[in-house]
């Protein structure tokens, strides 16, 4: 397995936020994780990304133990709930940010960012500052910036939560296209049931700090605690 998370526990004071987290994920796959607010999803992502230290447990990435590795050395990118762009940089420089840190030659940066802007359908927007872009465009730049560094693992924390329905749908399609194009392995956290089903190759459900990963989407649909059955009943009742 490409990502192996083994018995991770994370507490804040007396409150155990993540309880015995264990799961694994194959390379180039997306695990979507459904959960309500406050169930420990963000803490789980930040722990895997190295932004929080676990109390116990182990994280293996491509066979290497990264539990103690500093976040900047993990090659794991954590994407915030909001389209958090660097306000002092234009769209081009935001996407190039990670590449510049890696001291990649200027010509290659230009090529990569140009290609990324094309993939993101953002040609002609390169010079615009974040406050001149729409919500959907900012989110796309945010994606591009994360993907351009070719991360081993992408952690997405409710990335489309602030977008309207139409933009959200377009972003979901774009995300699927980009993950396939750039061979991205990702954890996609959402509280939207439909989005969880659409985005993941595998689906997990998190509740009170405990994560259940379903081997099959059917198991996820059948499990009453995921809320899928309630949804089916609701929409069925409208007929």
């Amino acid at each position, binding site marked *: 397995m490409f990502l192996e998370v083994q018995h991770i526990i994370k507490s804040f004071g007396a409150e155990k936020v993540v309880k015995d987290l264990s799961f694994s994920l194959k390379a180039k796959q997306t695990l979507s994780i459904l959960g309500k607010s406050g169930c420990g999803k963000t803490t789980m992502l930040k722990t895997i990304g190295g932004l929080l230290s676990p109390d116990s447990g182990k994280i293996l990435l491509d066979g290497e133990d990264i539990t103690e590795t500093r976040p900047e050395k993990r090659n794991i990118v954590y994407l*915030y709930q909001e389209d958090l762009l*660097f306000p002092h940089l234009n769209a081009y420089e935001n996407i190039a940010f*990670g590449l510049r840190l890696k001291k990649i030659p200027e010509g290659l940066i230009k090529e990569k960012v140009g290609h990324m802007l094309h993939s993101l359908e953002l040609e002609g927007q390169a010079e615009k*500052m974040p406050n001149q872009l729409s919500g959907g465009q900012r989110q796309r730049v945010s994606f591009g*910036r994360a993907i351009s560094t070719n991360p081993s693992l992408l952690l997405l924390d409710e990335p489309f939560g602030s977008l309207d329905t139409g933009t959200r749908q377009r972003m979901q399609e774009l995300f699927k296209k980009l993950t396939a194009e750039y061979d991205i392995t990702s954890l996609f956290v959402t509280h939207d049931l439909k989005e969880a089903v659409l985005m993941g190759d595998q689906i997990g459900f998190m509740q009170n700090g405990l994560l259940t990963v379903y081997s099959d989407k059917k198991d996820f649909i059948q499990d009453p605690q995921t809320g899928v059955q309630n949804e089916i009943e609701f929409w069925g009742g409208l007929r």
Partner: protein
Amino acid sequence: MKTKKPNIGIVLFVAIGVVPFAAAFVYALLYSFGIIGVANQGFTLRFWESVLASGTFFKSLGYSVVIALVAVSLSVGGALWVTLKFRRQLEKRILSFVIYLPLAIPGIVTGFFTFQLFSKGGFFARISHKLGFITEASQFPDLVNDGLAVGIILSFITMVMPFFVLLFLNVYKNERIEELSILAQSLGANSRQVVHCVFLPILIRKTWVLIILYFIFLLGAYEVPLILGQESPQMLSVLIIQEIKQYDLDKISEGYVVAVLYTLLVSVAALALFLPKRKRAYAS
């Protein structure tokens, strides 16, 4: 009614902000050319020629620029360092009060305190004497009324640095630099790169206009250099007041020449800052 409100605002601004300033400037200009003034006998360029030839103005201007530049640089640098290292502690109520406190102290009091602390007969000189570091007052280093303007710079830092700490803390929060730093780290930035690529550019680009305005403010400061400055060269405001208040009536006109020159200089700097249309908060 809606359209009248902005008009009243503009009228008030012109009446309170522009007219008195313009009147004072015209008065100073006329005085500097000898058109008005008790002993003046009509238009002349001799006061201007005298000021420009003596070099006192340029010496004083250079001295003021260096002092203001050093004080602003140290204050901004210090405030950035404090924000970077102690922002969590500064969010606590008592510490935030400690930062606000120096802002309430007038410049003249700060100057007086600095004099009491750092003069040859002051607090630190006495402590040094008690501890045996010096045997007489003259051995204490010149920290006030000195050529290097140590006392003036110390006072300016005491007055200005807390303001910048509060400003930077505010921008840090509003611009979400904490989250952006974590994001940069996640993209591969080490601590040094986070400071250089995220923390500094965002804070400086968001506040550079205020930094320059504070530089201009210090350039024209009066009370502190009056108490802590040396005989010559003096900072500009002190020079202007000293010239205007002299018994030699010619010197009054020369004082107005310096005042006009200083006003023109600051006005040009302010115009250069604010005239270009700033379409966005950040320059790319």
